[in-house]
């Protein structure tokens, strides 16, 4: 069972994190679609901090016999990997959109320039 003091400190940390996430969404620094995953993370951490038998129970389900917290580290690591992958996907999409924008801007700019030159040369 998680020691009481660890449980209290963990709960406080989780609540602070949830508050921070809420504040970031409120100030529009974090989009809701990306914020959702962080809210869920905060809630999971809070649950594990409050539910003092939780880690042992989950480890028992997963068949971890020697060191229950390892289930926690494994879950965190997996979560981080998925998150980084998600960021790579977002980054790829943004960079594709950036390329398209730059191309369209350059094409438009050249059209405007050529049209202005044509107008000037015809005295219009």
């Amino acid at each position, binding site marked *: 069972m998680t020691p009481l003091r660890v449980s209290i400190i963990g709960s406080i940390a989780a609540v602070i994190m949830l508050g921070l996430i809420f504040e970031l969404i409120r100030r529009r620094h974090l989009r809701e679609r990306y914020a959702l995953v962080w809210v869920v993370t905060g809630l999971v951490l809070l649950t594990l901090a409050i539910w003092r038998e939780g880690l042992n129970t989950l480890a028992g389900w997963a068949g971890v016999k020697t060191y229950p917290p390892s289930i926690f580290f494994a879950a965190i690591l997996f979560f981080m990997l998925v998150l980084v992958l998600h960021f790579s996907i977002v980054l790829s999409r943004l960079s594709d959109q950036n390329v398209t924008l730059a*191309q369209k801007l350059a094409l438009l700019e050249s059209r405007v320039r050529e049209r202005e030159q044509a107008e000037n040369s015809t005295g219009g």
Partner: protein
Amino acid sequence: MERRAPAAAPLPRRLVIVPAFNEQDSVGGVIEEIRRFDTKLEIIVVDDGSDDRTAEVARAHGVHVVSLPFNLGIGAAVQTGFRYALANGFDLAVQIDADGQHVPSELPKLFAPLEAGEADLVIGSRFAGERAFRSSFTRRIGIRLFALTVSAIARRRLTDTTSGFRAVSRRGIVLFAADYPHDYPEVEATVMIVKHRLRLKEVPVRMRERTSGRSSITALRSFYYITKVLLALFVELFRSRKAPQEDA
């Protein structure tokens, strides 16, 4: 024909796309050489975010110049040309590098199969003919490897899939304007043509040693280049994309 008013005059059919990144010393010569070969060809220089006077020099020669706001890489630069060709109703587009290694007098060899309706992509090959082309050892290995791979995919013998001296039909323009590979585009673009069941043809052409600048592919980058392109080709095989249709 009034070049500055493409909407009023009947549209010219052929577009020369010249991607240029920091080529102020050679781009003017390339434009003049194309003009000497055929005065009716429309030329678009895509300035890929150059730091030098590439765009000014090109503009002074009276061609269309599209200046990308920052360097996007050769693939996106060439695609900008295809987008221009698509929007302005060109029937075929040819790519000529701004460093002077492609010879405009060889253009008819690229145009002929397109205008005869025999192909949608015509690649000017340095190796298909009898003339030897000097290149570094690593580059030759890479070029050979790609040629073998793409030949296997296309089920026919190809010799030079990395050549940037290439021309496409209207159908090719439509495809590449919508989707063109980015970093090292030539090999992947060749496979795209095959996968979309468009027709591919390779013709032997003469090429020059570059007059200025260096190949973007140094020995150090070769390994990354080869790995990246092979991976892209592998993925491409499992991609089932419908060729984009032109809006009526």
